[in-house]
């Protein structure tokens, strides 16, 4: 089985990378999980997973210099494919090769999480949403973030990608969030998976180069992420079928 999720927001600062790794670690209790940093222009995953000194990353794979296996690192019970931060690596990376990377990984894992770019402004930023089976939308409970989350949903459905659910992240006010969540539910096609409180532990985990669920597994935020995955049913997809689908996906050259 394999299902590919894009974790997306359309806006920076919502905690996408933290959420991607938290969902990944929580799902790793039951599934083989691979997390891929698909934000090739502003890589973040490597800083959250203690991989900032690795020379081979997704950039080298997308640049055609290395096979995908060389960029897979076992971290925190997951397979992690980080992206590099150099400008030359970004320039040489061909985003369309992401399709082949996902197809190869799909043959050896149960769940693929694509940490996506914080924008919908370019073709490479939108590509993970096009390639995924479903999208997890990460929003803060603010008007700009919810609006951008709705835009992600419209992009996804336009490109035939489903909505797995919505995470309300970095919630600072307990009072009123349930009402906001209930009202938002009517506009989103997936379930509101959880409300994750803003917490100092998230910042500390980032400074310690660890995912939240490794750094502070008993924190309220970590518990909320685990609850979110309880509502996220991973769908069965045949490895071969998914791999073929990605290899054959119509992603023309830039």
């Amino acid at each position, binding site marked *: 089985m394999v299902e590919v999720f894009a974790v997306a927001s359309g806006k920076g600062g919502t905690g996408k990378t933290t959420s991607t790794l938290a969902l990944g670690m929580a799902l790793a209790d039951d599934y083989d999980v691979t997390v891929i940093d698909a934000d090739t222009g502003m890589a973040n995953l490597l800083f959250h997973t203690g991989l900032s000194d690795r020379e081979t990353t997704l950039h080298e794979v997308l640049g055609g210099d290395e096979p995908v296996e060389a960029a897979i690192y076992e971290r925190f019970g997951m397979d992690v494919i980080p992206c590099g931060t150099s400008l030359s690596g970004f320039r040489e990376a061909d985003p369309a090769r992401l399709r082949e990377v996902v197809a190869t990984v799909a043959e050896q894992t149960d769940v693929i999480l694509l940490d996506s770019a914080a924008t919908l402004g370019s073709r490479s930023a*939108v590509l993970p949403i096009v390639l995924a089976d479903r999208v997890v939308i990460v929003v*803060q409970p603010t008007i*700009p973030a*919810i609006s951008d989350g709705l835009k992600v949903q419209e*992009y996804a459905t336009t490109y035939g990608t489903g909505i797995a659910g919505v995470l309300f992240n970095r919630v600072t006010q307990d009072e009123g969030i349930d*009402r906001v969540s209930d009202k938002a539910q009517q506009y989103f096609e997936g379930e509101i998976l959880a409300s994750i409180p803003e917490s100092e532990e998230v910042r500390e985990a980032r400074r310690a180069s660890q995912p939240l669920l490794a750094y502070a597994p008993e924190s309220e935020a970590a518990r909320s992420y685990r609850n979110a995955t309880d509502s996220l049913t991973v769908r069965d997809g045949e490895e071969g079928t998914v791999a073929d689908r990605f290899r054959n996906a119509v992603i*023309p050259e830039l």
Partner: protein
Amino acid sequence: MNLPQGRLLRQRVLSSPETVLTGALDRRLTGYARLEPQETLLLSADRVGVVTFVDGVPVAAYHTAPDASGTDALTEIASSGPYRLGLYELEESALDRIHESESARVPPEMPARVLGGDQQLIERTRQRAPNDRLESESNGRDSLAAVEAFLENEQQIEAIRDRAQSEAESRADEWNLPVE
């Protein structure tokens, strides 16, 4: 609603509208910010949001297409990013006309609540605001209440979704992406 052209201080593209408020507060701007959604360029609509300031504190807001003023204009701005921003300096007397419009006036901290809800920015704005404005105009509505009000406006949300769908289709065309 028309304002005289001010002196351009800054022009840039930004994704977070809160940045405008921080910039105006830091500069103690008297003038206005003009925010044009980037999608306007793509979809050929004339949609512009304006927020006016005195000494860095927001005073009034309006929006074109849809025509809205006050808090409704702020909500429209909040849901339309990313933007092309122009920050303009203008004599306070040139802003009198819009500042006399009750429908366009907003409580000092309301833009910060609607455009992002950053508590530090809300506090800084309240500290800078003149006491008489805090007493007469602040309505105590919190940031989540502003979000709730936004979510109750089905028409506005449908408009956001419709625009995003058109944008996604138009980009699919431009980027040669498959559409369902």
